[in-house]
């Protein structure tokens, strides 16, 4: 695999050990997850033991060691979204995609994530699809959006913009 981007990310932060979390974020943005080879390079360059890097990579929920799907679906599960029945959306999406939060559908189309709070509580329940925020969601609207993606795979109508 091409590790040149990893080297330039590390350089951008001056190879500082304290930038580890920032570096891991950028690596993940580059590869959609944290590949083992990239982590080895980070360990070498920052002179940190590989197990310690894995410790950090597995402690923080934002990081993933497995590749993410083509589309990223994030459901907010903050208190405000919860009392406005956000949990029903999660239940419905889990049922429809047959995966748990943190997992990706078998065909690599959609990764499902649940986060504690996105801080847009006023318009909850909130869902984020490929970086775009959607407010006042319900189970039905969410299911329709997911189905649009799943159907798009056949008809080619839905493309990530």
């Amino acid at each position, binding site marked *: 695999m091409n590790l040149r981007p990893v080297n330039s990310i590390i350089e951008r932060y001056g190879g500082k*050990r*304290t*930038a*580890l*979390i*920032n570096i*891991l*974020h950028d690596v993940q943005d580059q590869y959609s997850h944290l590949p083992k080879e990239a982590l080895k390079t980070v360990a070498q360059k920052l002179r*940190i033991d590989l197990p*310690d890097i894995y*410790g*950090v990579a597995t*402690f*923080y*929920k*934002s*990081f993933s060691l497995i590749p993410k799907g083509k589309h990223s679906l994030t459901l907010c*599960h*903050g*208190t*405000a*979204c*919860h*009392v*406005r*029945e956000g949990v*029903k959306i999660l*239940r*419905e999406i889990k*049922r*429809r995609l047959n995966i748990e939060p943190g997992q990706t559908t078998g065909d690599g189309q959609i990764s499902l994530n649940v*986060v*504690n*709070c*996105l*801080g*847009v*509580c*006023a*318009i*909850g329940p*909130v869902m984020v699809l490929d970086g775009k*925020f*959607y*407010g006042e969601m*319900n*189970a*039905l609207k969410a*299911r329709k959006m997911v189905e649009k993606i799943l159907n798009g795979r056949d008809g080619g109508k839905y493309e990530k913009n």
Partner: protein
Amino acid sequence: MEGMGENMRKIKSVSQLEGWREQILARLKESETTISVCGGTGCQAYGCQKVKKAFQKELSKGKINNKKITLKYTGCPGFCERGPLVTILPDNIFYQRVKVEDVPQILSETVHHGRKIDHLLFEDPDLHKKILFAQDIPFYRAQKRLLLSKNDLIDPTRIEDYIAIDGYQSLAKVLSRIQPEEIIEEIKASGLRGRGGAGYPTGKKWENCKQAPGDTKYIICNCDEGDPGAFMDRSLLEGNPHSILEGMLIGAYAIGAKQGFIYVRQEYPLAYQNAERAITQARRAGFLGKNILGSGFDFDVDTARGGGAFICGESTALIASIEGRVGEPRSKQVHTVSQGLWEKPTNINNVETWANVPLIVEKGSQWFSSIGTEKSKGTKIFSLVGKVKNTGLVEVPMGITLREIIFDIGGGPQNGKAIKAVQTGGPSGGCIPASLFDLPVDYDSLTRAGSMMGSGGMIVMDEGTCMVDVAKYFVHFLKEESCGKCLPCREGLKRMGEILDGITEGKGNGETLPLLEELANVVADASLCGLGKSAPNPILSGLKYFRPEFEDHVYRKRCPAAVCTPLIQYSISGTDCTGCGACKKACPAQAIEGERKQSHWILPELCTKCGSCRDVCKTQAVRVQ
């Protein structure tokens, strides 16, 4: 760099700052009309970016009435629920729920002819009267928006906008004529207390850090706003990042720190981006770096990103995270003000605390301490969300009652269901019942009521909210977020979660509630850090104020709020159903049967209780029991 005027240069003295400010103000005067479009994350979900683009497109077509028009993409004015929000200045006309289609009309009617557009104005729900100005809307009327009001006035990506509203003037004042010790005295005299939740006096913290032995000191801005339901820190850092930098600069000068960090949680990409941009601009303008404003004072700021870990809001865990380690807290026998980041004295304050600092320097401690109650001074921003009509950010003087916030500003219940409680203080707080809504909101009264101020989340709950479910929600939240270092928190939360799961599944018995209470007290007593110590609060406050609801679940196996799925059933009322078939179409489980124009029914064995049928039913014929 975007947002940097061509006249951008390094400001080397207070008089150069004044010159630059005058230059900016003179340029602003040329503009006859300003159109402010809210650009906060909330309004973005409603499509404010499209509205802004539509304005750009229309304005590029040529001048309107030969007027010079400025289009501004501002921070969050707080009334997120009504977004996208557009304000037309200088007339200050406030439009809400603006769509792309409305843009040409706004330009031709309001900007060109000065005529108002009725359907974009807010309508007073009681008087059915259209309201022209934001300050007359009930949501804004009872607020005291010292900090938030600045969000409306500036584009957070333009340092010039901040300079125009007297930005960095407090820094100039401090560097040119106030001694560090005097600043600390001033902050102490103002009575400012930490806005992150615990309410520790800010001036005292600064003093402790200043007096701690050692030459290298750090300051940190905590924007790891982890409490679900709170988003004032996001809005401040997103909407007015330079005010945070100015607060940090003043703090650093007072304490004697040369380096600062802004720790931003991963879930706030826009806040992070705006903070980074502001730092770059401040460096170029000479507000960060060496010999700031020719005073000999050096200071710089870096950003650090979180990784989706709630515990990193705790000071020692946050420090570990900035150091690039796993975010585990340590025992606080030695405070962070003496040994923090890399073992050096470190002063951590929350975003809102830093935002108050330039204001106190500008207007004086006496002015600041005249607002609020005896022991809680100034204003506090709350995020008013959940089952309430007007949702958004509200800034109020300390001491205002919960009733005023929820009913006068929030407009009361959302859809006719009675409000029964408000949850404050995040997962460490508690639910305050409606019978106590006349409590003044300050650090001490909320703590006495079994909750806490926390960072300012206020989640309103009505009859449709199950208090057992809320307690369960928080316990599971904290179980996930417990770092696992100490046993009482790690195991205790897991067991309490299992007990609450059982209650909501109808598996409770006579021993369940006493066991839950006992366990809650052990976790509170024996945990290492604040997360575990306060974790049982949602359970204990729930049992204190809403015990009958818990007992209903345990003894009668029913959920009065109709939330806990194993205890409820969906059905369709034969008298209200019109047979439109919407529910049948919406049902993902094919659990609804019935002919068109005939009453429909639900097959309980197939029903997944997703609620889609109830969401689409126009006649409220779907019942939950």
